[in-house]
């Protein structure tokens, strides 16, 4: 054996120990890989995928909306949003401090906004502020190198040029609900804006177009490395409405102001085109174009007059004396009364052991159909109503379209109510009292209509018995007008009575709706809100106890082109309050100076 005098055994044992230590460290590092790759693998895979491809949506510009004469009602304007990629911020506090300085908003506000995004991965940019001014955009652009976490995104925002004036027609946009996102099957993303009301809602699919997409390869600095693929956006289709902006604005001006609550519908009785549809009070749809502020929303919700409601289609009211159009036509069509049947009005008459009064204390004397409409004689219609009975009244009311929606191309339409025996049994679980028929005969009681239904009803009278579908979009595909089973002669006599209302001395709107050069026919209505006995002078009453005012009309009387229905909630007398508004619209439409100062 070789003689080794060197100490080598100690060295060998130390090598063994060190080898064990190193092996242990390798195992520890392998455990580290195991943790990173198998335990956290999903997390990193998502990060890697985000690294690789970034989908940049190309937003399809939403279609524009024009009035019938090609005037722009809604357009798209660029709006700048501030996004923050929190993963890129070297110090979030510092970033927010900088943003707060530029935006002029307290840091605490911005911190609160970021709180909401705590659950979202930090590398996903989140919205910090909207509607940046151009100078703010410039500041973030200039300081971009120092604050790479900020990104300014350009979006297109709806600008409703005429704000409240077209609010209920055009509607507004909002973020889609989770349900809507699901049913859209990928066409909608959270954060998109879709039509929530009005035309924006009904024609959303047309207006929205289809978003495109750029898929780009970026590095984690967000620098574009190459474009992967690009799908161009398909711009939304533009729409032309049947609305006439001049009429729309005229109507809106009349209903603008405190205690102005109501609706105006102007419609072409020949084809159902809506030329004006106004509900008051209205709201500013531009508030919805940006993300609605809580305070603004609360104000809209809390407003006792509910500005978001479209009174022309969503609210139902007693028709009052305007219902006499239905009654007269029904009575003559059904031959309960002929045009010459006369009723003696002494101001009051007993029905079912109870006195019913005419609105005119002294009575109208002997009235036939024409006079009954012109003078709006209650006793005549009580008598007719008693003869017909509620079921027959209901049948004719339905022929006029009451009790069902008109089919207008905006959502939310109410059906109103046409009472009859069956309705009473089914809904009220009690028998119909014959006395109620007397009330219904003059449009009181449980009969309820929307202003649009009233315009529809008036159209049927004006066009000689055709039911047209009211619509807002000019070349909407519609079923052909449907002939309604009403006696044309009866309709002719009713039209005559309505001409009398406006143009014959004694007519209820004789002084308030006449227009030189054009013959207007109409019917006023006043709906009592509180019982006659409690009444004092109208203008002394608190707003909420005042009467509702109706005026529904058409012109020119011999060849109607336009139906105007006005409803003023708590407006007072129909002929006094509602008729002048209709008159102003006709003046505008026919280009006639009615000799009165314009509204407001």
């Amino acid at each position: 054996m070789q003689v080794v005098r060197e100490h080598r055994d100690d060295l060998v044992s130390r090598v063994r120990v060190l080898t064990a230590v190193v092996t242990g460290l390798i195992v520890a590092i392998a455990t580290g890989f195991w943790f990173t790759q198998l335990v956290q693998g999903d997390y990193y895979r998502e990060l890697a995928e985000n690294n690789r491809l970034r989908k940049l949506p190309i937003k399809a510009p939403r279609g524009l909306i024009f009035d019938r004469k090609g005037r722009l009602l809604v357009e798209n304007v660029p709006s700048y949003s501030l996004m923050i990629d929190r993963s890129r911020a070297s110090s979030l506090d510092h970033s927010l401090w900088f943003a707060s300085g530029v935006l002029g908003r307290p840091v605490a506000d911005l911190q609160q906004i970021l709180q909401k995004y705590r659950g979202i991965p930090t590398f996903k940019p989140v919205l910090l502020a909207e509607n940046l001014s151009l100078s703010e955009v410039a500041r973030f652009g200039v300081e971009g190198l120092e604050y790479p976490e900020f990104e300014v995104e350009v979006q297109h925002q709806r600008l409703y040029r005429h704000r409240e004036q077209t609010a209920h027609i055009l509607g507004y946009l909002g973020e889609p609900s989770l349900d809507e996102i699901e049913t859209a099957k990928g066409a909608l993303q959270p954060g998109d804006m879709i039509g929530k009301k009005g035309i924006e809602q009904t024609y959303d699919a047309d207006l929205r177009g289809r978003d495109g997409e750029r898929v780009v390869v970026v590095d984690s600095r967000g620098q574009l490395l190459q474009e992967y693929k690009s799908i161009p956006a398909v711009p939304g289709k533009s729409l032309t409405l049947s609305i006439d902006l001049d009429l729309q604005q005229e109507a809106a001006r009349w209903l603008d102001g405190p205690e102005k609550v109501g609706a105006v519908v102007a419609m072409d009785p020949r084809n159902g085109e809506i030329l004006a549809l106004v509900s008051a009070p209205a709201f500013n749809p531009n508030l919805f174009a940006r993300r609605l502020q809580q305070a603004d929303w609360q104000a809209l919700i809390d407003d006792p007059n509910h500005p978001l409601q479209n009174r022309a289609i969503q609210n139902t009211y007693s028709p009052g004396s305007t219902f006499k159009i239905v009654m007269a036509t029904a009575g003559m069509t059904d031959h309960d009364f002929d045009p010459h049947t006369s009723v003696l009005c002494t101001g009051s008459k007993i029905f079912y052991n109870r006195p019913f009064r005419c609105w005119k204390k002294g009575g109208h004397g002997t009235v036939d159909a024409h006079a009954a409409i012109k003078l709006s004689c209650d006793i005549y219609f009580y008598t007719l109503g008693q003869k017909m009975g509620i079921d027959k009244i209901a049948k004719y009311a339905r022929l006029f379209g009451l009790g069902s929606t008109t089919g207008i191309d905006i959502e939310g339409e109410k059906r109103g109510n046409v009472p009859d025996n069956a309705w009473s049994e089914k809904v009220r679980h009690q028998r119909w009292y014959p006395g109620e028929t007397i009330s219904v005969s003059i449009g009181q009681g449980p009969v309820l209509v929307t202003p649009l239904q009233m315009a529809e009803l008036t159209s049927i009278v004006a066009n000689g018995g055709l039911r047209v579908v009211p619509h807002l979009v000019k070349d909407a595909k519609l079923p052909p007008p449907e002939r309604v089973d009403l006696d044309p002669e009866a309709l002719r006599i009713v039209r005559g009575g309505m001409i009398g209302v406006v143009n014959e001395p004694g007519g209820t709107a004789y002084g308030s709706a006449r227009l030189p050069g054009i013959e207007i026919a109409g019917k006023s209505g006043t709906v009592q809100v509180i019982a006659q006995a409690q009444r004092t002078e109208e203008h002394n009453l608190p707003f909420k106890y005042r009467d509702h005012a109706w005026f529904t009309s058409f012109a020119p009387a011999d060849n109607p082109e336009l139906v105007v229905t006005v409803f003023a909630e708590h407006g007072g007398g129909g002929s006094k309050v509602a008729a002048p508004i209709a008159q102003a619209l006709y003046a505008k439409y026919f280009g006639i100076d009615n000799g009165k100062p314009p509204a407001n």
Partner: protein
Amino acid sequence: MQSISGSITGSHPLTEERPRLRLLSSIDGGLILSALLLAAIGLATVHSASSEMPVDYFPRQAGWVAIGLVLLVISMSVDYHVLLDLSVVLYVLGIVSLIGVLGFGAKHGGAANWLRIGAFQFQPSEFAKIATGLFLARYLAGLNNRVLEFRQIVTAVAIVALPMVLVAIEPDMGGAAMYAPLLIGMLLVAGIRVRLLVTAVLLGIVLVSGLWTFGLKGYQRQRVLTFLAPETDPLGAGYQVRQSKIAVGSGELLGKGYMQGTQSQLRFLPARHTDFILSVLAEEWGFLGVASVLGLYALYISSAARIAIRARDRAGILLVVGLISITCFHVLYNSSMVVGFVPITGIPLPFLSYGGSFTMINFISLGIILGVDIRRYVNR
């Protein structure tokens, strides 16, 4: 039968062929196999890593591996005792080349550590490291006492400190740090009193804090800070840690497939053919790939340790320990860095990472270790 075979071995005297055959047949299979497999995996991974780069580093690396194999044979065939005898000369040459780098070095990435000779560039610090290892092994082997005396330790530290400081002021902190495992590994094996070890650790802490304050450049300090809190600078130094962790983590168990790693193919990974080659591997081959590679390193290291243990003399043990310590450090540090355990610094992975000097030095190191092994029975 038995008698015949016995008579054959007995009857023939030792020829010149006998020791040579024994020389080749006694090559440690585990060591050479793991090294060659790692080099092959390295070549494939370098190809994948550089597929999106302006040049494919695969042919170059293949060239380096070929040169490395030649150097392996040369360094293996030279008796390590000859190398130890020459170590003083090699050490001085190493120091001179390091000083030369300080004077005429080509700058690469903020540090001047390349020396250009004709078309050839190499890093003298790599060769100086081997020379230092040889010199230190010779010094410690000659001491022949159970535990080192303080004076001897100081001498050993001085031998290593000279080239280390020269590399550090290039400045190449990663390269300088590579001298530490050499020194520590050899000192630990040569024998240090526990009391002294504790003192050294404490001194080390003081030194590190001193280095932090006075020795580190801004970007180096930033790297360390970023390592401690990568979120603070995701676009700067933290970018690399983050991208590496994303690459590794997203590889999951089986990986994304060869050449399919999005992190590397889409150029998110920095230095992916060199320092972050393991990230590419982890991304494309998953945890199974990483575990295999770490297993090969464990095989390499344990094989080398076995060679040290059965080495013929103290010098052989210490030389193998010194060389394998450097490899251990590279493997441990680089793999820890790739998963984000330690700050990023330019420490590549032996046999896997692309690099001329580095590949050559690994094969030389392997050759020396094998040389020690095949001479375990040979008398001087």
